[in-house]
Structure formats: structure tokens, C-alpha cells
């Protein structure tokens, strides 16, 4: 098994159940050296369980975990070169910052001088050179975060596991730490496995993202692939904002379908995911708001491409959020559709109660067979 040492971490058909709960069900993946890999899934899908198996706190019922090509099944947690940043950080409150970072080095039997240089070195790298003698309670949330990472990184791990480490921070700090984490990962050039249920964290930071649902990996890919080419309805609905309808297929032509939604809308869509639908099949249809163009009706009803879906509606409300502003449009059938718009603050802007024409291409109408 020496052939695959390019990968820092490989999991092969891991299964874990607690009684009748299948927490992790047949999960396989491998993570190339030095990449930022995220596992994204809703609460309770088994992310923490998977991570605890990699760290060695739980034993999988079957399957294999390899770190740098070597199986670690049966290796106790303190002998695996996988370090973990816990959800609530788990810094040791009875030690100061220096002692917290030195703890792992002491366990490894490093000499006093080595410990001193390494601790000061890592503190400089996380740009907190002066906090060595502070108590843990004297640090801010973001500083604690970085100390928790430094405590692991000082040991040169093969893989660093992070279990929703930003969960306890407030929104502002979370945004800042996202970028910081990505930079730290570049700087240390270590494989990060990052667990989160926040899709924007996963999309912003990761090289690769695995979408997990009910103990299974639904899709693994780059953030762009997951966003633009979801392979399953779950992925399309979970990653990014989207309009979604349930409907039935009324016509099929190669690669494209015509769908009538439950509310009575008819639209043309492209077939995605597994299984070719035939007439009468139930499908889920997803259209992202940024692909829907909203224009005032009548003004100059022009140049809407032939293959496009077109709907007339009335603006229900405007959700102003700077560059990410959005309108909620109520269609004839009474359903609400979200569309991204540019609001310049001028008189030409869309206003509530305006009649609008929505249009989007069939290609961007992703339909998945149920």
C-alpha cells in the first residue's frame, strides 16, 4: 500500500453505527497533500463522528483509515499524527498560553530549548508574538482560536482536523477568521480537514468540499463544481441559495425536459443528476436567483432568447443588501420567485408593485428526478 502516499489522508468505506443509528455510512474519500478539504452537511449528519474516527476517539465498525498511506486502525489517538481543533477549542485553562502550546512538545519529549524556540516561532507565525505569558482567560475569541491552531501546528501534524471551530464566534469575527484560516493553511502548508454546516465557510475556504447527508457523502468536488454542477437534488438545495419547485415532467427531448410545477408553472429545464426522467415522473427543479433576469414589463419587451423560460409577475418586496440585492416576485400562479437585481439608487430601479418579466435559460433550470 505504498503507492498512494501522495494522499495525506484516505478513508475507505468507513461505517459506524450507534445501535440502530447509522452515523457514518460507507464513506470513502482521499485528500491530496496540502489541500483544504471541507465536509459540509446539516446538523446530525455524522460529521463529528467521522472526524472522531480519524482522530482515533471512535473505532469504525468497518473500513480503513490511512494517514500518509499507513493504516491507523488500532493506533491509539495519542500515536496518530493527526491533530484536532475542537469545537469549543478545549484550551487548558490551568495553563498559560506558553504552557498550552508546549504541552504537546513536552509529551513528545522535546528539550527545553527546542520547546522555547518552537513555541516562540509558532506564536510569531500566527502573529501573536507577545501573548506567551497570558492566561487563557485574558485572550479574545479570535486569539483563542489562533492559539488552538498553533497548539496543534507546533507539532507538525500530517493532517489538522477542525470541527466547526468558528461556531462559537460572533458573525463579524467569523468572517475575518474565514480568511485568516485560509491564509494560515497556506502558510503552514498542511492538509486541513474542516467541518462545518455553514456553506459559505466551506465555499470560501476550501479546495475541495464533500457534501454529507445522513451519514453518506453525496458529492465531492471543488466549490465551483458543487455550485454549478450539482449531482443530486440535495446538493443543489444545500449549496447556495436557490428557487426550488416540485413538479412533473410533461415532455422529454434529448437532454431537456418540460416540467409543470405543482403551482401550474410550465418551464423548460436541463436534466441533471442520475436517472433520465420520462413523462409523468416527479422532479425537483432548481434555479439560482442570479440566473433569473427581472425587467419591467412592457417598457421594451425585447430580445428574450428563444430557449428561455419567461414568467410575468408583480414585485412583492425588495430585499436590499447592497450588491446582493434581491426581489421577491409573485407570479400569476401565486408562487414567490427570488431574483437578483442591481439597484443603483436611481429612478429606473425596480419598486414594489411593479409588473416585471422574469426570464432565465433552460440550461440553468436544473431538474432532478425524485
Amino acid at each position, binding site marked *: 500500500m505504498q503507492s498512494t502516499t501522495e494522499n495525506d489522508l484516505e478513508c475507505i468505506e468507513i461505517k459506524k453505527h450507534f445501535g440502530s443509528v447509522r452515523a457514518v455510512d460507507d464513506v470513502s474519500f482521499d485528500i491530496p497533500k496540502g489541500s483544504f478539504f471541507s465536509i459540509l452537511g446539516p446538523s446530525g449528519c455524522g460529521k463529528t463522528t467521522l472526524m472522531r474516527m480519524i482522530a482515533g476517539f471512535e473505532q469504525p465498525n468497518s473500513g480503513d483509515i490511512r494517514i500518509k498511506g499507513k493504516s491507523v486502525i488500532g493506533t491509539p489517538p495519542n500515536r496518530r499524527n493527526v491533530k484536532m481543533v475542537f469545537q469549543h477549542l478545549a484550551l487548558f485553562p490551568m495553563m498559560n498560553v506558553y504552557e498550552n502550546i508546549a504541552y504537546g512538545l513536552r509529551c*513528545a519529549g522535546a528539550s527545553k530549548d527546542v520547546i522555547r524556540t518552537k513555541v516562540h516561532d509558532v506564536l510569531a507565525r500566527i502573529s501573536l508574538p507577545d501573548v506567551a505569558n497570558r492566561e487563557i482567560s485574558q485572550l479574545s475569541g479570535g486569539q483563542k482560536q489562533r492559539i488552538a491552531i498553533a497548539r496543534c501546528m507546533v507539532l507538525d501534524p500530517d493532517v489538522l482536523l477542525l470541527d466547526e471551530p468558528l461556531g462559537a464566534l460572533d458573525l463579524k469575527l467569523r468572517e475575518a477568521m474565514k480568511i485568516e484560516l485560509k491564509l494560515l493553511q497556506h502558510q503552514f502548508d498542511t492538509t486541513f480537514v474542516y467541518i462545518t454546516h455553514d456553506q459559505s465557510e466551506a465555499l470560501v475556504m476550501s479546495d475541495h468540499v464533500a457534501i454529507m447527508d445522513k451519514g453518506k457523502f453525496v458529492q465531492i468536488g471543488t466549490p465551483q463544481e458543487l455550485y454549478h454542477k450539482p449531482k443530486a437534488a440535495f446538493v443543489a438545495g444545500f449549496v447556495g441559495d436557490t428557487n426550488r419547485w416540485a413538479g412533473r415532467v410533461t415532455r422529454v427531448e434529448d437532454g431537456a425536459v418540460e416540467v409543470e410545477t405543482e403551482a401550474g408553472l410550465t418551464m423548460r429545464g436541463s436534466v441533471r443528476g442520475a436517472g433520465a426522467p420520462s413523462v409523468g415522473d416527479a422532479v425537483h427543479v432548481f434555479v439560482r436567483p442570479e440566473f433569473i433576469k427581472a425587467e419591467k414589463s412592457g417598457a421594451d419587451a425585447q430580445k428574450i432568447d428563444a430557449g428561455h423560460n419567461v414568467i410575468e409577475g408583480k414585485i412583492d418586496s425588495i430585499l436590499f443588501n447592497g450588491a446582493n440585492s434581491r426581489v421577491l416576485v409573485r407570479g400569476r400562479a401565486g408562487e414567490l420567485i427570488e431574483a437578483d437585481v442591481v439597484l443603483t439608487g436611481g429612478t429606473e430601479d425596480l419598486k414594489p408593485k411593479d409588473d416585471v418579466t422574469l426570464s432565465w435559460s433552460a440550461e440553468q433550470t436544473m431538474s432532478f428526478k425524485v
Partner: protein
Amino acid sequence: MMQKDIKRLSLYLLFAPFAMWITLLIILPHLGMFYISMREKVAPRVYEFGFDNYINFFNEPIYWNTLLRTGSMSLLVTVLALLLGFPIAYYIAKIAGNRTRGALFLMCLIPLWVSDLIRAFGWILLLRETGIISSSLQWAGLINTPIEFLYNDATVIVGLVYTVILFMIVPLVSTLDGMDDAMIEAGYNLGGNGPTVLRRIIIPYAMPGIVSGCIVVFMLTAGSYLTPILLGGKNSSWFTEQIYDQFITRYNWESGAAFGFVLLAFTSLVIWIGLKLSGQTLNSTVARS
């Protein structure tokens, strides 16, 4: 204005029972005792003030030997209670499931429902020459003649540990309970093995609980009377027995009171040294556990 007065009045009313308890049961008796301890009997019904009673104590080796013996045995009991109580507390707080935890805690409390006296007699029933243990050993053919298990130091220590261990377990459970499991896992994850995690993480974290448990146990043991007397008999030489002797047998309240204060000073000194050695303050231990 009214509101404020009412608030203040209710504060006084709430505080009154506590203040009364402190003054009537603790401060006044001690002041009285201290007053008595400073009196010297020069002739029947004639007293003088002075430290004679205290000087007497130090002049008589049997007295301070008894005190030292009581102190060292109490320390031994405290250490044994800690060594036995820590794994039990750890099991209750960290390993047992939620349901078993309650049951285990209750089981620790059960001995408290029976009075001290009855428990001590229970031990006597088991350990005396004609008691259950001796006779069953005879019956099993392991010994030929009945053995007296009572009236030796080992029995006194076992009996005392049994009586006080609960007061060690309770503060330990409550501090260990407050410890995040992730902290222990982090200890392993960063490369520590079992002993390292215990020594560097669990024990430092539990230190306030350990210290407060030890204080309570040491105080209770050094001041206990029934168990050493009943299980140790005449030669138990427990210091409280000396005090009792002065008060009741010799009717020498003056020196009895002085002995009481010597015991108080001695145990306070031991605890002060213990706190200094463990680097804790009384405040931190009381606040944390």
C-alpha cells in the same frame, strides 16, 4: 424612598437568622471558651488571667504527642480518602452514563442516613472477637482461634476513611463534572498518554476540588470523636478524647478549653501549609467547587 426602606428591611430580615446563627452558635461560644481557657485556677474559686493552661499543654509530652499522632493519622486518612475517592468521583462524573450517575451518587449518600453511632456499632458487630468476620474465618478453617480486629490503628483508619470519604467525593464530582470531555481528548490528541493526561490535565483541573475535599476531610477526621473511641478503644489516643477527658472526667474546663483552641490552631496551621504547598487560595477552592 419607601421602596428603598422596604428593600433594606427585607435584607435585614433575611440576614437576621444567619447573623444569629453565626453569633449564637459560633462566635459567642468561642469567645466564652477563649475566656475560660485564659483563666488560671490559683485556689478554689480564685482565678487569674494568663497562658498557664497553654503552657501546661506543651510541658506535658503525652498531650502534644497525642495531638501529633491525631494530626498524622488524620493526614493519612485524608490521603487514603483522596486516593480511594478520586477514582470513584472520576467514574461518577466522567464515565458513568446519566442514569447510573444518579444511582451511584445516591449509593454514596446512603451511609449518611444512618447515624454515626449506629454505623460504628455496625463495625464493632463485624470486627469484634466474636464478630461475623472472625467467626466466618474460623468456620472456613482459615484461623484456629478467634481474632480481635478491633482496637488497633488500622481499624480506626479504615473506619474513619469510611465515614469521611463522601465528603471527598462530593466536591471532586462537582469539579470534574465541570470539566469538558474535549479537554481530556485534547490531552490525548496532542500526544499525551494516560498518566500524562492525568498528571498534567485532570489533576490540575480538579485541584480546587481536591483541596477543598481534603480540607473538609482533614477537619472532620481531626475533630471526630465517636469512631476513634468506639473502634480504637482506650488506646486510640485521639486528641478529642483528651479534650473530653479534661471537660468531663477531670472537670477541668480551663485546660479543656485551652486544648480545644490548640486543636483549632493546629488544624488551621496544617491547612494553611497545605494551601501554600498546593498553590491554592481558600477563595479559589471554595468558589470553584
